[in-house]
């Protein structure tokens, strides 16, 4: 029986966590389920490192700089290199640092899931500043509340509004609509297709258009606005009138009209099915076990989308604990768990953190750069190609030379020393400590979870 229990602890730290670091395994061993469930609290980010307000201020500053350089006919300094990229880099590194240092790795995994679910990418200068802020301001604080709150926070966040062009979407019959500008359906389409019901969710083209009208006027503040740096409802952009979406009528009550639609979408059975399936696929297996998904959907419907309740159902379900490791780690999961394996959690090694960042760029998993509102793929096939593996090997070879941790300690900490006989044998024969560590991090056991 003891062995079975240990296996559950190994599953808890690797499948649902970010690989054990420090004394985490001992904590998980006692009661793996409880260890996971007690982590369902929001990760907290330091606002002073960057928030919408400071991003907007920088955008305003850049505008002034550009004006001045035009007026004085002077060359514009390289603002990308001096202002924008350092800002983005600071936030990305902070998020990586949180991941490697966290004592709630399961919560961080769920944050990563939803951050990718609501994917925003750096493209323009504005998006380079805004993209890394979405998960900090909109996703993390709503991670374990109702999905409706999370959904509304995300769709009203400037990063999403700008990324999917809703800030300038104008209802054709609105006051502003009398001038040339018109409706932009981009955000409405992705809300239905990617964020809630899913592409097979049974909505029509007309539903998309109706939703776009319902959320027309959801925009961002101007420089002159008090409390500059956030969501602003522009009544003069909003399409007047009632909307009919998925057969239900929503009266025109301004900004609240769109919110009412999102509330219903959040608790819709199709949304429950789509996101539960996707979450299981992300955490447990590319082919999610049907009973598990259906149990989560039931909880979702019953609680009207209480994320904490749905996650609890998942953790308490036996199909979540299949002893087979079905998932191949994504590069982010891989580099973060590798770092946690070789470094002590108390002191963050900036040098190693930089190597992590290089690894993500190198392996094609750069944060906020999927280039698609669908985000990065979460399927094994996307990350297990031969070139991806070669890059992983090169990267591990570098990492393993940067630390002094021993393969034996790491194996004990992450796998309770329960490795396959082949891996054990080959680790013992490694020609150096660094090589042994590299082989452990590249072993089938470590690459899967």
């Amino acid at each position, binding site marked *: 029986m003891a062995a079975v229990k240990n296996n559950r602890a190994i599953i808890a730290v690797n499948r649902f966590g970010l690989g054990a670091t420090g004394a985490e395994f001992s904590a998980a061993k006692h009661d793996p389920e409880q260890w996971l469930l007690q982590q369902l609290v929001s990760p907290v980010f330091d606002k002073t490192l960057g928030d919408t307000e400071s991003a907007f201020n920088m955008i305003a500053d850049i505008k002034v700089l550009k004006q001045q350089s035009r007026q004085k006919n002077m060359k514009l300094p390289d603002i990308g290199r001096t202002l924008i990229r350092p800002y983005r880099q600071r936030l990305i590194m902070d998020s990586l640092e949180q991941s490697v240092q966290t004592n709630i790795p399961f919560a961080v995994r769920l944050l990563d899931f939803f951050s990718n679910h609501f994917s925003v990418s750096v493209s323009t200068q504005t998006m380079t500043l805004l993209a890394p802020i979405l998960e900090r301001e909109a996703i993390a604080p709503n991670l374990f509340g109702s999905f409706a709150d999370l959904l509304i926070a995300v769709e009203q966040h400037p990063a999403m509004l700008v990324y999917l062009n809703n800030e300038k979407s104008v209802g054709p019959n609105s006051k502003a609509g009398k001038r040339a500008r018109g409706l932009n359906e981009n955000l409405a389409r992705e809300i239905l297709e990617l964020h809630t019901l899913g592409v097979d969710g049974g909505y029509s083209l007309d539903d998309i258009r109706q939703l776009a009208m319902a959320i027309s006027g959801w925009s961002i503040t101007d420089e002159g606005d008090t409390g500059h740096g956030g969501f602003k409802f522009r009544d003069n952009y909003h399409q007047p009138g009632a909307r009919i979406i998925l057969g239900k009528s929503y009266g025109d009550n301004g900004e609240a009209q769109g919110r009412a639609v999102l509330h219903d979408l959040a608790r819709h059975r199709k949304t429950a099915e789509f996101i539960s399936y996707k979450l299981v696929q992300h955490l447990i297996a590319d082919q999610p076990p049907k009973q598990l998904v259906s149990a989560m959907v039931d909880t979702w419907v019953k609680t009207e989308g209480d994320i904490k309740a749905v996650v609890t159902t998942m953790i308490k379900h036996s199909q979540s604990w299949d002893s087979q490791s079905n998932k*191949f780690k994504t590069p982010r999961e891989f580099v973060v768990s590798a770092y946690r394996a070789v470094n002590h959690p108390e002191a963050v090694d900036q040098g190693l953190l930089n190597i992590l960042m*290089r690894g993500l760029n*190198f392996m094609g998993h750069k944060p906020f750069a999927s280039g698609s509102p669908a985000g990065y793929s979460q399927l094994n096939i996307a990350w*297990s*190609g*031969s*070139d*991806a*593996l*070669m890059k992983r*090997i*090169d*990267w*591990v*070879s*570098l990492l393993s*030379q*940067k*630390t*002094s941790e*021993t393969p034996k300690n790491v194996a004990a900490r992450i796998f309770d020393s329960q490795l*396959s006989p*082949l*891996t054990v044998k*080959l680790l013992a*024969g*490694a*020609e*150096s*400590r660094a*090589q*042994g560590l*590299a*082989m452990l991090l*590249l*072993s*089938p056991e470590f*690459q899967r979870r």
Partner: protein
Amino acid sequence: MNNKKIDRRDLLKAAAGSFIAWHSPAALSLTDIPANNLKPKLVWVILRGAMDSLHAILPLSDSGLMEHRKRLVTPVKDRAFDLGGGFALHPAFKELNRLYKKKQLIPVVATESGANSRSHFQAQDMLESGLPEVDTESGWLNRAVEVYRGASVAVAHTVPIGLRGKHLAKTWYPDLLRPASDDLFQRLKVLYKDDELLSERLDEGLENRQLLSGMEQVENKYKYNFSSLAASCAVMLADKDGPDCAMLEMTGWDTHQNQLGRLDRKFSQLDEGIAIIRENLAEQWDNTVVVVTTEFGRTVAENGTRGTDHGTASAMFITGGAVAGGKIEGRWPGLSMANLYQGRDLMPTSDTRQWIRAILSQHWKLNAAQLDYVFPTIKTMNSQLIRPVSKSTAAI
């Protein structure tokens, strides 16, 4: 090979950060350095994985050699360089042979590193730490350079145990993501043999890499081979603000199978690396000692896969312009069955660290108390290893 001499300015530019504040406050100030800066330099090359000493320095007059490993000896014995005294150098050691003839090389036979273990890690730790109880945070070279009040550099990503300690050692390594070693790939092939996905992907990846070996990749790879690292190391040492000692590592010596071809290549790389150190040190070579050591030796007999397994005694090389060479050191224990350690390994007759202690005494002039601090339980080998009056002293 061309480009043996590398551009000093490029390297210095690359390592600029490391050169600022190179010396610790306790170290010599710039004004203390003689104008010609011909200071005694020490390079330590550690061969990780246990070099097969019997293939490097062949005891051809010992009849036991052919008895135990005929198939390994036959292809090389006629081409080996005769050193006299019944020993010969593997034919790949062209530079080492030249140095021996110039009396700048001492091969030391039948050495051990003090570890009563055939584990690579334990033996390397013992060799690097140099303490009776291994302390992985204190290496002998660090303690030596601490009392010598000098500066050091490790050509590595991270400070190896040998240079860890109170003295602040620098590290330097070319800053690119280098391809992992061939040896690691070979081992991963075995590690993945029960994993269909990973083994298939690895095979594909290795095949692609072969196909793509265009110029860029070759150039990148060149940056990380031993010769290139050795060249960088020498350029740093030769610089007027450069360190007094350096540590270089070379992996891939764990030759359990098909060792003939592998050792041909490894020996050539090591030999070329030594030549490149000499070339890039230029006039500094005359004040330099290069010590080449490994953690233990390999079985006297060939194993079933045309390789050799973990053994006990190995060998070391002491070379450099400051060395009083042209002789073989170390007592030869013989290869007859009765003389083998545990009936299978070359019997150690001296400890690598005793020779290093003698070098620190003669080359850096460390006194007895300082030597005891570096190697508390090791006795100094009583042998003249360094030329009594080096050119540097004469020049000052």
